[in-house]
């Protein structure tokens, strides 16, 4: 999937300001960003629900919008219960069977053996977690080329979360499916995704593998035995710092040996880079 310079507005308000993104075949790509940054709008453009004003969204080189052939290869799990309330689960399965030629009923039954939903239940009788699990199972059962999942794990209990993740990984391994998944649980994404994109105010600010994104930031611990030196705030790329006694923790972008040397010249007796979590990168990126 390739997204090239996509712009999208609601009325006069531009939500997406020239988004570029690509998802490799057979990979799991995470999309993170604060509430209201445009993740869901981007996903709706990707699934052909909205039409972008500018730019291109291509799957296998074909545009998605108003293209049933391409849309048949795209699964979409919305951020909340997306199905018709009055439908029973078996009716929903039948609906998907009619809608998608590639729908694999047996695969759905296999998935459901783990989750254990009753087919006679109506959608409105399901809990939030159950309806999200149902959406994931139905969309995985069409064996899509790419599945777009908008916070699919929210509301799921730990066991079902693990089951759904296993289903996704299985589909990626067996069928080479690509996944674009958004979530606010960054620890989870860190362990689950091959690559990641970070959105801020309708733009992608970081994109790449988790390690690539992490390499953009550095967290270092510095000991200034003689107190805080003058000019620390002028160090290039300094995002923020805090201290506990003489130990200073600094967050920097573009950390290099030159900065380490500068710090030592300022009187640092000890400089050490320590690993950062995705959550920390997310927080500092949005500062």
């Amino acid at each position: 999937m390739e997204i090239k310079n996509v712009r999208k507005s609601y009325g006069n308000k531009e939500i997406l300001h020239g988004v570029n993104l690509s998802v490799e075949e057979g990979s799991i790509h995470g999309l993170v960003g604060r509430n209201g940054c445009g993740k869901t709008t981007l996903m709706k453009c990707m699934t052909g629900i909205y039409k972008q004003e500018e730019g291109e969204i291509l799957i296998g080189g074909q545009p998605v919008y108003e293209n049933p052939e391409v849309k048949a290869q795209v699964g979409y799990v919305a951020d909340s219960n997306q199905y018709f309330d009055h439908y029973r689960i078996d009716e929903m399965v039948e609906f998907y069977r009619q809608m998608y030629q590639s729908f694999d009923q047996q695969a759905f039954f296999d998935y459901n053996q783990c989750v254990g939903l009753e087919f006679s239940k109506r959608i409105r009788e399901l809990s939030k977690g159950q309806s999200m699990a149902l959406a994931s199972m139905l969309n995985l059962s069409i064996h899509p080329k790419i599945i777009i999942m908008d916070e699919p794990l929210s509301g799921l209990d730990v066991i079902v979360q693990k089951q759904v993740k296993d289903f996704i990984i299985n589909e990626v391994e067996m069928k080479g499916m690509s996944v674009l998944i958004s979530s606010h649980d960054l620890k989870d994404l860190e362990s689950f995704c091959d690559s990641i994109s970070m959105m801020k105010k309708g733009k992608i600010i970081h994109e790449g593998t988790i390690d690539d994104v992490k390499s953009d930031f550095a967290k270092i611990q510095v000991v200034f035995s003689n107190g805080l030196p003058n000019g620390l705030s002028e160090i290039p790329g300094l995002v923020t710092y805090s201290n506990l006694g003489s130990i200073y923790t600094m967050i920097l972008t573009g950390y290099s040996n030159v900065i380490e040397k500068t710090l030592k010249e300022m009187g640092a007796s000890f400089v050490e880079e320590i690993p950062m979590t995705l959550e920390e990168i997310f927080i500092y990126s949005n500062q």
Partner: protein
Amino acid sequence: MKKIFRKYGILLPAAAIFWGIYISNLPIPDFTEINISYFITDKMLYGWRILWILYLIAAAGITYHLQNQKKWEYIYSFPMTKKQIYRQSFLGLYISMIVSAVIYGIFFYVQGMRIFTKAQQSSSVIELLASTFVNIAILFVWCAFTQLCMMILQYVWQGVVVSMILVFFGIPCIVSNFGYLIENVGHFKSREIFGHIFYGMDKGISLVPYLSNLCSNNYRQESAFQHLWTTHFTGIAFIISAFLLVLAFLVFFVAQKQFYRLDLSGNVLISRMKGKWNQIIPSLLAGIFAFHWITNAQMIGWNFQKGDRLIFFAMMFLRKRSVGVAMMPAWKICMTFILSMAVMWGIVWILRMIRRKINEGAS
């Protein structure tokens, strides 16, 4: 998709049967008691109106789900084009509308025949058939305009309000004026066909144009002209039916086209139209309505020697009385038209400016 909106399809045929049985059981009055005959013909016409109101409700329900409910947006991710989604969603309603029109048409025709038989009229089967066809055709036109309002305005409540204004005030006003124009040109009472038949105006003489003996037109009182008027009425009724049906399909087609172009996230009519069309289209539409409304009101004033007083504007609106533009002098028609357009242009300009200011304030 068809199954999702299945429940909406049940409404109309059920109402057609219910109201058909109701009118069939109405006692047929003695035609010397003219008020009772008005009463019964009005009741027969209400059937068409009920069908339209139910169509409006059903169309609003479906449109709400297809366009206004965020939760349902995901259906556009299914492997179908908007056109296919739209067609499949509305197909059941379209079929039920046609079926209910046919069902009610049969009841309407049968009851009409009973009335004619009791009144010992010499009207032919063809005349009554023509009357039924015109009513079916106008139902389709109403539904088509309703569909257009729903599709273009997108916000359901706006669609409901505009279609009600169109059906109860706009269309009768224009149709009536059009009828007068033909009447003046063609020298026969076309207004009875255009103006009275659909709305039961003047207390329900809607069937009268097809009962040439009952018609008050002097020409038709003379037996020598009887066959001539019968032919005229029947012929023009079929032509009107055909014209209205073509109009209805055209409007449905425009509504569909408009719908395919819509982006679900751009929910405001004015922001969807670009540049100068934002100003031109609303001004033109509002201007046409204003022109017809003003000319009708002026003619009432002129007819009743009351002058162009404001009260007649309100009266016209409330009573749906219209007397037509064709009797006005040409210069006055032109001036009224230009004035209507100019005023509406100004109003639209002010509304757009207010809207722009609000948007700027919000952003």
